[in-house]
């Protein structure tokens, strides 16, 4: 490659990065969650890891994680992951109280796996809340939701809402 060619490549690359930078700035300016100014602390919120149903099942089989159902108590009573604890995300203002009520379960030395229905936000919301509260272990969310767990015929149980982890 000739020097001139290299120079022009470097120049073009620079302009390209500059264009990307301007775009990034503009996106940040108009993004509804105006973003770069977020603190290091709120970055911790994002340490929620999305996993698929099979990855969740591996952790279920290894008994290394506590499953938390973020759906309503009625849905939980109909069917849930066997051994899961119900921690409904709504209404939001009751969440801190609910988390406190499940303290014994959450204090177990286990990772947490949240789930709700497919494409729902309650599991993620609750998971972020727990991370923000400083939960020291991994916090996962099953991306495909509970339906996929049922579809794969993984173990489920039917019982009224429980707040404590049950031994499987």
């Amino acid at each position, binding site marked *: 490659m000739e020097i001139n060619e290299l120079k022009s490549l470097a120049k073009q690359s620079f302009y390209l990065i500059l264009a990307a930078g301007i775009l990034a700035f503009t*996106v940040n300016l108009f993004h509804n969650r105006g973003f770069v100014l977020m603190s290091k602390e709120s970055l911790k919120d994002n340490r929620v890891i999305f996993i698929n149903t099979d990855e969740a099942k591996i952790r279920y089989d290894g008994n290394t994680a506590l499953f938390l159902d973020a759906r309503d108590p009625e849905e939980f009573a109909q069917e849930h992951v066997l051994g899961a604890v119900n921690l409904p995300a709504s209404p939001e203002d009751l969440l801190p109280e609910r988390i406190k009520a499940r303290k014994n379960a959450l204090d177990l030395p286990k990772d947490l796996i949240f789930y709700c229905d497919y494409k729902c936000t309650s599991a993620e919301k609750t998971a972020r809340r727990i991370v923000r509260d400083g939960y020291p272990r991994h916090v996962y969310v099953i991306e495909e939701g509970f339906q996929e767990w049922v579809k794969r015929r993984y173990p489920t149980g039917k019982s009224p809402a429980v707040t404590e982890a049950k031994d499987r």
Partner: protein
Amino acid sequence: MSRMRALISSLNYGNRFVSVFRLLLGILFLYSGFMKLLNPYAFAGIIGQYNILPDVLAPYAALLVPCMELVAGGLLLLGFRIRAASFLLFFMMIAFSIAIAINLIRGASFHCGCLELGWLGIDESISLKLILRNIVILGLLWLIFNARKHPLSLESLIEREKLSHI
């Protein structure tokens, strides 16, 4: 054998195959950049999980990386400034692969946040398979970078236009 050699030299020179790769990669990077920009928070979290960049820089990277993918992907698709776009994407893919490799060695396991192809049933948790996929993309980017002619591109259209005036 000679047909093989002809194909290689035609790929090197730039033929329709290279253009198809360019268009496909352009769409892929545009899509992946756009999806990441929809939720920069989540992408910053993923960058945080890689545990390579200082936390302070993660939010900035979470905006700049998707924008670079958008700009470079868009240029690849248009066929304008192709060499610079493929050059940048090439180095970005190398950086991503190194980041994945480091975390594989650390024994970490998380969603890679790379091309957002989970809806196609493609598992994007960090793995050796993902590095191999990146190597294939690197190969294609190299082909695009190396090619002298790019049919179906804005550059070739401009060149043809210039030549018609001579």
